[in-house]
């Protein structure tokens, strides 16, 4: 009951943040006018700003935030490691390696152009990590996936660094993608990633009961009739869809997937159905809230959302870790 009220409150906060994100910006538009222009397009410049710039940005913030939060929660549940984030599966490194190649070797320069490369890179690398992490007989322990991801990640990091140091102009474009930002994304980007994120969300929630069984350990889970390897396979599929599409749309924003599931567990305990629900709602609150703050902090310039999420989210996270006993995975 308490968890239900908390979740309803969180949804309310998310709604508030979405409204803020439509209203606040470099161009000062009154609140009531914002509302009117949202409902009917009067052809003015203000209408264009709200309908073509702020609406896609808010939509993308909610989608990407939910995707990163869920992917992080799934990753931590699958590996039972609080250090795990979707990046460990090689998603970020795969996407980054593909984006670096796109800039250096194919001359791609726009956010819309990066999306397909990033998606493909994330998918290829996370499949490679999964295959490596589940070779061999017997039940696959969680450490294998983590170590495989770290090992392949190091190889990709070496590749990325080498290309960046050899091609200075690539580094110039890449460093802005690499921070993570929602700025300058159009409805087209939303359309590109939504077909990946929405099925990912569905799979994540369908997996929740099996994740609860898996939390008892591979062997106990198996004895209780769960199929750990199938759960893992679908989990990896969902993480790839969610984090791959999220990273493709907004760049690697690591902190959301890492911290939000921890907070969700502190609030909701260890039942994955609640952890996933809270993660899906709280992550967009953090991402979109940080995006709004980034717009007003050094106006008329903008601070990238990737910088703000960590800088403002981390102190809250640290305070929570100090107050509460970390929930067990």
């Amino acid at each position, binding site marked *: 009951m308490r968890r239900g009220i908390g979740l309803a409150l969180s949804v309310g906060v998310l709604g508030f943040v979405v409204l803020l994100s439509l209203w606040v910006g470099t161009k000062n538009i009154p609140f009531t006018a914002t509302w009117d222009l949202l409902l009917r397009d009067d052809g003015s410049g203000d209408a264009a700003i709200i309908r073509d710039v702020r609406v896609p940005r808010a939509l993308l913030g909610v989608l990407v935030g939910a995707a990163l939060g869920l992917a992080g929660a799934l990753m931590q549940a699958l590996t039972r490691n609080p250090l795990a984030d979707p990046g460990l599966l090689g998603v970020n490194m795969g996407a980054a390696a593909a984006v670096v190649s796109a800039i250096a070797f194919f001359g791609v320069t726009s956010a819309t152009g990066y999306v397909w490369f990033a998606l493909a890179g994330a998918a290829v690398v996370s499949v490679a990590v999964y295959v490596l992490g589940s070779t061999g007989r017997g039940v696959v322990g969680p450490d*294998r996936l983590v170590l495989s991801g770290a090992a392949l990640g190091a190889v990709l990091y070496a590749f990325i*660094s080498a290309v*960046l140091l050899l091609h200075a102009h690539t580094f110039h474009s890449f460093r802005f993608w*690499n921070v993570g930002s929602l700025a300058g994304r159009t409805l087209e980007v939303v359309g590109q990633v939504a077909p990946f994120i929405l099925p990912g969300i569905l799979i994540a929630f369908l997996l929740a009961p099996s994740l609860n069984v898996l939390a008892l350990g591979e062997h106990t889970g198996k004895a209780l009739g769960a199929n750990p390897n199938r759960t893992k396979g679908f989990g990896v599929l969902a993480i790839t869809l969610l984090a791959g599409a999220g990273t493709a749309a907004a760049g690697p924003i690591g902190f959301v997937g890492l911290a939000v599931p921890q907070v969700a567990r502190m609030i909701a305990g260890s039942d994955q159905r609640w952890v996933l629900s809270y993660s899906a709602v709280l992550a967009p609150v953090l991402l979109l809230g940080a995006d709004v703050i980034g717009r007003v902090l050094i106006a008329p310039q903008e601070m990238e959302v990737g910088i703000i999420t960590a800088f403002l989210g981390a102190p809250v996270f640290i305070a929570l870790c100090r107050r509460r006993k*970390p929930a067990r995975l």
Partner: protein
Amino acid sequence: MKTIRTGPLSLRVSERAVLTCLAVAALTAVTAVTTMVTGDFPLTVGEVLSTFVGQGDGASEFVVLTLRLPRLLTGLLVGAALALSGAILQSLSRNPLASPDIIGFTQGSATGAIAVIVLFQGGMTAVATGSAVTGLLTSAAVYLLALKRGVQSSRLVLIGIGVSAMMLSVNSYLITRATLEGALAAQAWLVGGLNNRGWDHVRVIAAALAVLLPCALWLGRRLALLEMGDTAATGLGVDVERTRLALLAVAVGLAAVATAVAGPITFVALAAPQLARRLTGASGPGLAAAALVGGLLLVVGDLAVQRLFPTTPLPVGIATGAIGGLYLVWLLATEWRKGSTR
């Protein structure tokens, strides 16, 4: 396992661990010789040896004593220091992913270095000092924030993640706001390298290891007890909090000196202990083996970047990432195919 007894002292030694350490040391020696004799100015082993005893001509003296030897020694010692630091932290946190970044060290030291490079255009010494100072401060902050009637490993790791993320965001901010040259210099530092390292660097890292290595090995015995869990270790007579603080201090000190000398060379601290643990088949921390593997990894990596890309001075971190990563992938794959459950 063999037990050696001399009078009141007895020592348990694993034969496989000793053999592995000897093999790693031999490989390191082979790599070192190769590094000394090959390159733009090829020498024979005899010429190198006669240069050591002061019999070489001017050119070979410059190549051997000023260029190759200090760089080789720096690499060897930095690798050992990073690997030791990683081994201690992985064992303390009981997490195979742990490396000096879990206590905020890596990101914290990067903040200092990038700030010096980007904001003040500082030289090599200023960058090294900046990185060591901010790294140590960040780690101290993480420890103090995690301190609350003792430090639990899980809380330390989580707070380390939070602080690291904060520092990372500062680093990203500095890199995106810097000029392209400043950002490139910062990126090169972030990968870590051994270009232009001289005797000053060798002296710093050697002095640090001379103090910290014995401390690490001495505390290593209690580290094995800590791995059983805080309660069991307390029951066996270990002062858990004090031992943990001492081990953290040693690990951070090693990482700080290594980073100040060569930058945060990627992946050595994470991979070397894992490789050592898998090669020796040991269940405990295995600090000596980790240090040897770390040294080897860095020396091989540096040889690779020097000989494969002689024209562009790529940082050694690229090679350690690629070689260490691929080797770990191969090792994991073969081990797991055999059906080991670890």
